[in-house]
């Protein structure tokens, strides 16, 4: 019995309980992930991080949340009040809604009812996630605009431009998955990965998705929307108290959501790691939830890891990277994938498939070598201007000195 049919049989109370469960899980994960992030980053920076409240400082995020909620709720005079209030609500709502189509477990016994931990299963589930993500952008844009201040506006515009740009790359990276899975339904995509994860088969897609999901969530190194040095706090500069908390929440829920989607689409979803399938049989359906969260938290760790190690990109570099690298590469990759897919569906001889892959690789090498040569040429051209003697005193540049010595 497929997931869709199982969900179709759900009575109303099961749906309500599932929704509650997902919401609670998201909030809990947010709170714990804030703590986890601070601890991990602290470790990476050779600090201790929060360790006072509760064991290992586990309650730190909780008390922070309480403190945030008790702060004064300011609305600037220049703000557009309605939208100012509306923006964080849109943002938060949208990020929770994405979870509706994520299958968290396999078939489980839910208070005596056989079902799966998935709120709904629609045939265009992944598109739905994208749609919700695009609605989520409204929260950021409107927050930036309604604050009636320059920094938030710039931050909001930046983040919306960023999200829209990277949504394109993200959508393109998903196309390959759709082609291989033959469906846009999340549960069917998970089911299609029972042998091989798409992270393996469609490795380039996986990479593109991973990059663009970081961009999509405005996280470091792509956190230009809240670049403190440039824009103070970005779109939420004027927000305080609970409304700020909502943005905070939505950011982390978003991280969890895109991680969950990545898990679903590329890492086999709730299924166990390869070779550990026996856990599912032994420990029952609910144990798949553990596998799911392990994978999601793995992604979360990557997010934190990135934040801890990489500096922020400059805005124009970032947009260039999105439009001039990710998207063209995705398009080319989709062409390759669809060709291969059609070949295998038509039972083409293996020789031809191998020849095709080989020729693609050759073309790739040719293009990259050309690009490299161009870069070298540019560098050579640039050297000439560098060697010009500036008309003010400058300290000796080691490289140029050595170049001069070496000829």
């Amino acid at each position, binding site marked *: 019995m497929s997931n869709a049919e199982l969900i179709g049989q759900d009575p109303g109370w099961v749906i309500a309980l599932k929704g509650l469960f997902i919401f609670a899980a998201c909030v809990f994960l947010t709170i714990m992930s804030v703590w986890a992030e601070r601890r991990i980053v602290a470790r990476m920076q050779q600090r201790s991080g929060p360790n006072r409240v509760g064991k290992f400082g586990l309650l730190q995020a909780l008390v922070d949340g309480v403190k945030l909620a008790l702060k004064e709720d300011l609305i600037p005079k220049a703000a557009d009040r309605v939208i100012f209030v509306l923006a964080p609500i849109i943002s938060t709502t949208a990020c929770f809604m994405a979870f509706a189509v994520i299958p968290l477990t396999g078939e489980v016994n839910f208070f005596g009812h056989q079902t799966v931990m998935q709120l709904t299963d629609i*045939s265009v589930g992944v598109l*739905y996630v994208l*749609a919700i993500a695009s*609605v989520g952008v*409204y929260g950021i*844009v409107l927050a930036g*605009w309604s604050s009636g201040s320059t920094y938030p506006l710039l931050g909001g515009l930046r983040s919306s431009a960023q999200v829209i740009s990277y949504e394109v790359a993200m959508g393109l990276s998903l196309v390959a998955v759709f082609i291989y899975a033959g469906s846009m339904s999340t549960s069917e995509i998970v089911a299609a990965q029972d042998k091989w994860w798409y992270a393996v088969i469609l490795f380039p897609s996986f990479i593109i998705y991973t990059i663009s999901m970081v961009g999509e969530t405005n996280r470091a190194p792509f956190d230009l929307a809240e670049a403190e040095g440039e824009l103070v706090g970005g779109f939420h500069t004027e927000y305080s108290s609970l409304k700020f908390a909502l943005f905070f929440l939505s950011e982390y829920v978003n991280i969890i959501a895109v991680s969950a989607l990545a898990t679903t689409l590329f890492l086999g979803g709730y299924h166990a790691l390869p070779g550990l399938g026996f856990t599912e049989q032994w420990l029952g359906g609910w144990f798949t939830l553990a596998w799911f969260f392990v994978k999601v938290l793995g992604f979360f760790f990557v997010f934190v890891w990135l934040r801890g190690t990489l500096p922020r990109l400059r805005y124009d570099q970032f947009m260039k990277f999105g439009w001039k690298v990710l998207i063209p590469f995705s398009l080319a990759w989709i062409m390759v994938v669809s060709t291969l897919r059609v070949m295998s569906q038509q039972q083409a001889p293996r020789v031809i498939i191998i020849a095709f892959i080989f020729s693609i690789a050759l073309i790739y090498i040719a293009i990259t070598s050309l690009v490299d040569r161009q870069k070298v040429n540019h560098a050579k051209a640039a050297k000439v201007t560098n060697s010009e003697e500036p008309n003010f005193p400058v300290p000796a540049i080691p490289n140029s000195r050595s170049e001069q010595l070496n000829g």
Partner: protein
Amino acid sequence: MINLALDIGKTAGPEAVLFYFLAPLSVFAGLGMLIVKKAVHSALLLAWIMVSLAIFYIAQDALFLGIVQVVVYTGAVMMLFLFILMLVGVDTSDSFTETIRGLRAIAITAAIGFGGLLVTLIGRATFNRPITGLASVNSNGNANGLAKELFTQYVFAFEVVSALLITAALGAMVLAHSQKTRSPFAQRDLSIARFRKDNLKDAAGLPSSGVYALHNAVDVPALLPTGKAAPTSISAVLEARGDMIESSKFQLQQEEEEK
């Protein structure tokens, strides 16, 4: 002949509830679009209407279109609108005094007549085929069915539309492109410019704002070693707006005594 308004298959309860809840809201939102002063509010109301329509699509067995509606319209098109709105004259509220005499009255009259006639026309429209619904064509999934139509019967139109889309994208790029008259003023240029000035006093950068230890804000000028305020430490914008706090009260007491 079947009267459309009377004999079309009545739909189930939940859809009726959905409709009677969302339809008036979307009509009000539409009317709101016309009367709100700020264009951003109009845009939001339109986005709301589009989401409502998406829900209607889904309710009418057009799942794919519903989702695409949200992705394309609410996500991309309306976001583009907001974007442009914020780029150009975001603060301008529209004036509602009509400049073309009689236009508004005629427009509203004509529109009411138009809408009224259209509604009455639909009301008495007849339909000479039994209603089949979409259950059979959607049996394989709405997206699949639509894909089949698009890539068989309408494949040529599809290709043409894709060409149109590319053309539009290129056209927009050409239209919005402005030839830069000088190369962007980057950090490097700024640095060189600082050093090329007559005196090298500021070559290391301007002093930071704020009176250290007593106050820390961008609107307070820094104190020079002599204890006097340094006006260059304040952003020119703040200075122009008059948002500058007098720094004299933060100056060292003994300086004042010396005077």
